[in-house]
C-alpha cells in the first residue's frame, strides 16, 4: 500500500461517513418533494451536540458514560480492519470472526448501556435490538463465511484481494453474499423496512429508543459511530458487488476505486428510495424480511460449497456470451 492510497483512505474515512448520511437525508427529502437539509447537516448536528451539556440519569452507572466512547473506538478499529474500501492495510487481525465479534461486542455494550439507565423506553429498545440482531447475525456471518469457504481462508483482506482466480460461480457467490450483507445491514443499521430512523413515535422505535437517554457529546459519539458503521457495512457490500463486476470485466485500479465509491452512493440511494417508497413492516413481519437476508447468505454458502465440489470445472465467460 503506497502513500497515495493511504492518503485516499484517510480522506475517504473522514469524509464519507458524514457525506453518506447527509446524502441519504437529502435524497429522501428530495424524493418526498422537500428541499431537504444540506449535505453536511450531520456534521453541523455533531457540532451542535458537542456544544451541549450532558444530562445523565441519577441511576446510571459509569458504564453508561463509558460505552459511547468504547463503541466509537471499537468502530475505529473495525474501520481499519474491514476492507470496505479497495485499499488493504496488511494488518494481521482482519479475521472474519474477529470482525464479527467486534461488531457483536459493540451491540452488546450498547444494549447494556441502554439497560443501565433503568428507563423503560431504552430497555424496550434494547430488547428489540437484541431480538433483531439475533435474527440478523446468522445472515452476516454466513455471507462472510461463504466467501471464506470459496477462497479457503478466513482472512478478509485475502478474500477481498484480487489474487484469486475467478469463474462465474464466484460471480454468483459474490452477488449473493453482497445482497445478503446489504439486506442484513439494513436491519443492522435500523433502516427502513424494519425501523424508521426518523420516527417520532416511541412505540415503533428500535435504535432511537435504545439511545433515548443519551445526550450531548455522548450522543454525538454514538451518531458518529453509527455513521461510520453505515459506511463500513455499505462499503463491504459494495465491495462484494464490485468483485462480481471485476470478474466479468477487466477494470484498472483507479476506475475501480471510483466505481467502489460510486457503488456506496448507489446503495445509499437505494436506501433512500426504500425509505421513501416502502412502509415500515409490522413487528411480527420482520422475520419475513430478515429471512431474505438469511436466504441470500445461505445460497451463497451453498454456492461456495458447490464451487469447491467443481473446482476442476473450466471457466466460462459471461462477457463473451453477452
Amino acid at each position, binding site marked *: 500500500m503506497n502513500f497515495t492510497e493511504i492518503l485516499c483512505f484517510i480522506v475517504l474515512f473522514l469524509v464519507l461517513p458524514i457525506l453518506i448520511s447527509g446524502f441519504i437525508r437529502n435524497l429522501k427529502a428530495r424524493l418526498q418533494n422537500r428541499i431537504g437539509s444540506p449535505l453536511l447537516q450531520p456534521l453541523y448536528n455533531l457540532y451542535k451536540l458537542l456544544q451541549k451539556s450532558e444530562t445523565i440519569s441519577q441511576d446510571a452507572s459509569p458504564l453508561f458514560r463509558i460505552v459511547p466512547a468504547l463503541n466509537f473506538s471499537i468502530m475505529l478499529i473495525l474501520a481499519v480492519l474491514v476492507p470496505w474500501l479497495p485499499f488493504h492495510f496488511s494488518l494481521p487481525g482482519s479475521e472474519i470472526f474477529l470482525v464479527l465479534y467486534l461488531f457483536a461486542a459493540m451491540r452488546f455494550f450498547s444494549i447494556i448501556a441502554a439497560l443501565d439507565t433503568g428507563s423503560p423506553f431504552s430497555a424496550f429498545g434494547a430488547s428489540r435490538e437484541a431480538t433483531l440482531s439475533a435474527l440478523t447475525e446468522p445472515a452476516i456471518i454466513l455471507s462472510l463465511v461463504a466467501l471464506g469457504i470459496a477462497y479457503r481462508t478466513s482472512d478478509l483482506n485475502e478474500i477481498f484481494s484480487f489474487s484469486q482466480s475467478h*469463474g*462465474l*460461480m464466484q*460471480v*454468483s457467490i459474490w452477488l*449473493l453474499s453482497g445482497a445478503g450483507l446489504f439486506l442484513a445491514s439494513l436491519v443492522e443499521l435500523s433502516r427502513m423496512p424494519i425501523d424508521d430512523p426518523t420516527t417520532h413515535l416511541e412505540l415503533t422505535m428500535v435504535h432511537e429508543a435504545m439511545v433515548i437517554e443519551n445526550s450531548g457529546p455522548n450522543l454525538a459519539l454514538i451518531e458518529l459511530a453509527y455513521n461510520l458503521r453505515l459506511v463500513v457495512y455499505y462499503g463491504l457490500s459494495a465491495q462484494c458487488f464490485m468483485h462480481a463486476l471485476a470478474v466479468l470485466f477487466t477494470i484498472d485500479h483507479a476506475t475501480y476505486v471510483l466505481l467502489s465509491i460510486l457503488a456506496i452512493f448507489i446503495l445509499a440511494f437505494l436506501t433512500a428510495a426504500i425509505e421513501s417508497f416502502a412502509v415500515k413492516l409490522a413487528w411480527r413481519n420482520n*422475520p*419475513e424480511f*430478515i*429471512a*431474505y437476508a*438469511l*436466504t441470500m447468505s*445461505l*445460497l451463497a454458502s*451453498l*454456492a461456495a460449497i*458447490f464451487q469447491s*465440489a*467443481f473446482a476442476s*470445472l473450466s*471457466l*466460462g465467460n*459471461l462477457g463473451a*456470451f453477452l
Partner: protein
Amino acid sequence: MTPLEFLSIAAAVFAILMCGTGLLRFNLFLYSLQTFSIALATIAQSQQAKEPELYFVAIAIIVVKALAVPYFLSWISNRIDARSDPGILIPIPITMHAAIVLLGISYPLAKSLPHILWLSDSTVGATVAISLLFTGTLFMLTRRNALSQIIGFLTLENGIYLVAVTCTRGMPFIFEMGSLLDVLVAVMIAGLFVFRIKKSFEHIDVTQLDGLKES
C-alpha cells in the same frame, strides 16, 4: 462454469426468493424473472449445442411465460382484489429456507441420475431443474391462495422444461411448442376458474374448498 449454468442458478435463486413472500405481485415478478433466466439459458444452450430452433422456443417462452402469463395473473389478482397469501402448514420464511435445503438435496439427486443424462456435464442444470420441481411443489403445498397454486404449477413446469433443455439433445420442436401452448391454455382456464371461485365463494382460499369431503 458456463453461462447456461449461471443463468439456471439465477433461476433457482429467483424461485427460492419467490417462496419467501406472500405478496402475489412480488411472487409474479420473481416468477417472471425466473422464467426470463430460463429463456436466456435456452439461448445459451442453443449456442452451445448448435440447435437454432431453440431460439424460437426461447422467444416464445419470453413472450408467453415470462410476460403474458404474469401479466394476466396480476390482472386477475387486481380484479378480484387478492393481494397476498398468508400461507399454510409452515410460515413463509421457513418455506424459503426449506427450498434452500431442497436445492442442496437436489445436487446429490442430480448426481445420481443415470449417466446417459450427462450430455455436456450438466450437473448444475439438472440440479437447478430438480430444485425447481421441488420449489414448485413446495410452493403449491404451502400456499392457500388459488393464484399461488397456479404460480407454483408454473414453476414446476419451468423445472420440467429445464430438464428437457439440460438433459436431452434436441427435444422435438413441435413438442416444446405444444407443451407451451398447453401451459398457456391451462393458465387461462385456471384464471377463469379463479374468477368463478371468487364469485361463488367470495374468497380464493383453496383450503376452504371442502364441501365434498368424504361423508
